């Protein structure tokens, strides 16, 4: 059975990953919709910016976050009086996880929105629905499997996030030390292979659980649609 310390590490990882996904999901849906359906100057640039975390070394992203959201960074200074602090907090780990998972989420959702027949949206409008209603009653429900896939990919990415997190918020037990960081820490200590292995197994179980959950969610809606 996992020890109390191990459970705390798992709980922290889940919290970081959950909030990272929860907060970035609406933004990702908006970005995916814009990329799938809108044409505007600078779209290529926007597309590239969304995908940047996918191609940049995570350490670079972490460093960028530190520069922007650190105590003395331009955004960190503005947000601190509002009570929003990212530096060396679990919220920073969630932010790093959100940024790193963002491109995966956008890609999956965009693909799903691409498959929604725009003429169904036209039909909804002739029936009296405004654009936002069409989006929430037609586009989004039909893109649901893509949403689930995107959220799962980002969640898994968040559970595994290492480079950006350790660079941005360091490796503070109980605050920013998520599973990968804890495993890394144990591997740096001579003779601590056993705890590292135990945490690794937990990590595998967690990922499998998330996968099963998302399969179930996607299937429930998928069957209703294709039957």
């Amino acid at each position: 059975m996992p020890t109390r310390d191990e459970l705390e590490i798992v709980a922290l990882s889940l919290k970081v990953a959950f909030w990272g996904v929860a907060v970035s999901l609406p933004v990702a849906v908006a970005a995916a919709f814009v990329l799938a359906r809108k044409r505007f100057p600078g779209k290529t640039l926007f597309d590239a910016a969304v995908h940047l975390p996918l191609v940049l070394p995570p350490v670079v992203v972490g460093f960028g976050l530190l520069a922007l959201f650190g105590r003395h960074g331009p955004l960190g200074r503005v947000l601190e009086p509002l009570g929003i602090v990212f530096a060396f907090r679990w919220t920073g780990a969630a932010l790093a996880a959100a940024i790193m998972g963002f491109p995966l989420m956008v890609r999956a959702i965009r693909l799903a929105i691409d498959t929604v027949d725009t003429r169904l949206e036209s039909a909804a409008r002739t029936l009296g629905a405004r654009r936002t209603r069409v989006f929430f009653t037609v586009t989004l429900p039909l893109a649901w499997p893509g949403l689930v896939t995107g959220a799962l990919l980002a969640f898994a990415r968040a559970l595994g996030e290492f480079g950006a997190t350790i660079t941005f918020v360091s490796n503070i037990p109980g605050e920013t030390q998520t599973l990968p960081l804890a495993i890394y820490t144990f591997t740096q200590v001579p003779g601590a292979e056993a705890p590292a292995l135990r945490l690794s197994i937990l990590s595998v179980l967690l990922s499998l659980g998330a996968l099963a959950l998302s399969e179930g969610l996607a299937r429930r809606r998928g069957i209703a649609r294709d039957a």
Partner: protein
Amino acid sequence: MLEVDVAIERGRFAIEARFASDAPIVALFGRSGAGKSSLVEAIAGLVRPRGGRIAVAGRTLFDSARAIDLPPEERRVGYVFQDALLFPHMAVRANLAYGERLTPARERFVDARRVVSLLGLERLLERLPATLSGGERQRVAIGRALMASPRVLLMDEPLASLDAPRKAQILQYVELLRDELRLPIVYVSHAIEEVTRLADHLVVMAEGRVVAQGPVAEVLGREEMVPFAGRFEAGAVFDTRVASHDEAFGLTRLAFPGGELVVANVDALVGEPVRARIRARDVALALEAPPRASFQNVLAAVVHSVGRDFGAIVDVTVALPGGERLVARVTRESVVRLGIAPGVEVFALVKAIAIDRRSVGFA
């Protein structure tokens, strides 16, 4: 009243159309690619015309001169798409309710239960669109459009993807709607038999232009319509009334201003209007009435014009005493042999008559 006067650009294809009608059913007729669908999309607000004006029932939906361009959701047009386009993630009941919920209560004039029973949807309500047959889907699509209480119903080739029995069934429903709900309908089709059965006002389109328009019988009788109606189906349309039934022989006499047609028993009461279509290939010409022949209908007529020939075949238009036109398809050799020319008196021998419609709209 439906008024359309627009110019639309779709890529390199330009559409210019102008028509106005207060007929119960206006048919847009033409081959695929003639611009019919673009035109109804413009009426629905799904395509923005380059310029012009669109008004339905006295309400301006689009007017480039006055900078009016209502979004589709404010136009109150019911659009029935060729492939139904039901929402796949909603049961039939939710599909039907989609537009109804969005219609302000004071604008609703269509009763949900009435639509369900009119279209025979009672047993489909809990089903998902993917489990419906093509005809069922199309009925639900019509119901969904109706439940939003539209001011006009646009039907874009609603039968194109259906087999013959389903087509006949949906056509009956369309006639029911016209007669029961008194809702003006714009019906897009490339099938002459649908158009002659349903339409009151016919707008013929080709290559983005309106090439003919007017009452169906009059327009289809025009000689220049032959290429549009298709060589096989080309012919004349007669709006008649049932004059009498001959029970013994199972025949019905149909009266029109210039005479009478005898057809096999038509299931209609005496006095009821019936639309009959006589295809050019079912009409022969003779200089004298044949004394002993099986033809039921031998009509005295005067040759109006001799059409351009398709090789050995010529379409000859003749005028009946009442002014109606009839087209006869004969060989060029017969035209020469019988000396057929404008002004010559002939007899039109009618071999078959198609009955396209047993009721006429509310206008």
